[in-house]
């Protein structure tokens, strides 16, 4: 694979747990193939970056927690950023975010990165 860059938009949240592991897994695979992956959390997806949520959430009963998927992705080198408007939507502040989160970004950043990255995935 040519060195690729993937931007992954995560809009699904804890209400649909079956959608909450795959983005991290795919991002980890991208880095395993020497690509770069960044996940942007919007809308309900930001709740996965909220303290206390991902550690009990599982995509499938008996499976790994979403926090384990998040940590594996981080260890692999995946970047994770949250949308500032989504923070407001859920009455959250930066203090509510787990340490795996790499920061808060605005809409212009997302557009810029969308133009820069070769591939975009949305969940």
């Amino acid at each position, binding site marked *: 694979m040519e060195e690729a860059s993937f931007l992954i938009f995560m809009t699904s949240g804890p209400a649909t747990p079956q959608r909450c592991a795959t983005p991290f897994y795919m991002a980890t*695979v991208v880095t395993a*193939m020497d690509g770069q992956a960044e996940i942007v959390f919007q809308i309900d997806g930001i709740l996965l970056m909220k303290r206390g949520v991902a550690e009990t959430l599982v995509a499938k009963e008996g499976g790994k927690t979403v926090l384990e998927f998040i940590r594996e992705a981080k260890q692999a080198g995946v970047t994770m950023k949250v949308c500032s408007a989504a923070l407001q939507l859920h009455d959250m502040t930066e203090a509510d975010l787990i340490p795996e989160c790499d920061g808060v970004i605005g809409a212009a950043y997302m557009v810029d990165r969308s133009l820069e990255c070769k591939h975009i995935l949305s969940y």
Partner: protein
Amino acid sequence: MADLNHCILPDELAYHVEFNVWVRDNGDGTCDIGMTDIAQTLAGALIHCRPKQPGPKAVAAGKSLATVESGKWVGPVKCPFDCTVVARNEAVEKDATVINKSPYKQGWIVRVQPVKPDALAALARGQAAVDAFRDYMAKNNVPACIHCEGFDG
């Protein structure tokens, strides 16, 4: 052949301990590379292996030679030295459990040509490899290797 806590480490191979891969010098300028017994134990039952395609572009040390997936883990098989890929093992692409069953024989992953002829000199061999893997296993909390049915080393 060394047996380290039920983990097999053939004497004739060279190892990159940090990347957990073995290298076999084929004597014709090429080397085969695969996952160690310890690596296949850590990964668990493999479900997919996607080796890099052969081609003239050199793969740098530390980059990915293959991506392996198990039910509990996904990650790269890292390149131990700068090289070009000259062949890949289609058998492991069709059935990744070949790596679990035969990590040092049928489960080779890619055949490469080192960029530098002395590339293997920096790898660990013999007792030095055993000692280094003992430390690796302690660090990564691997008490012993697990062998599936049909394991042939």
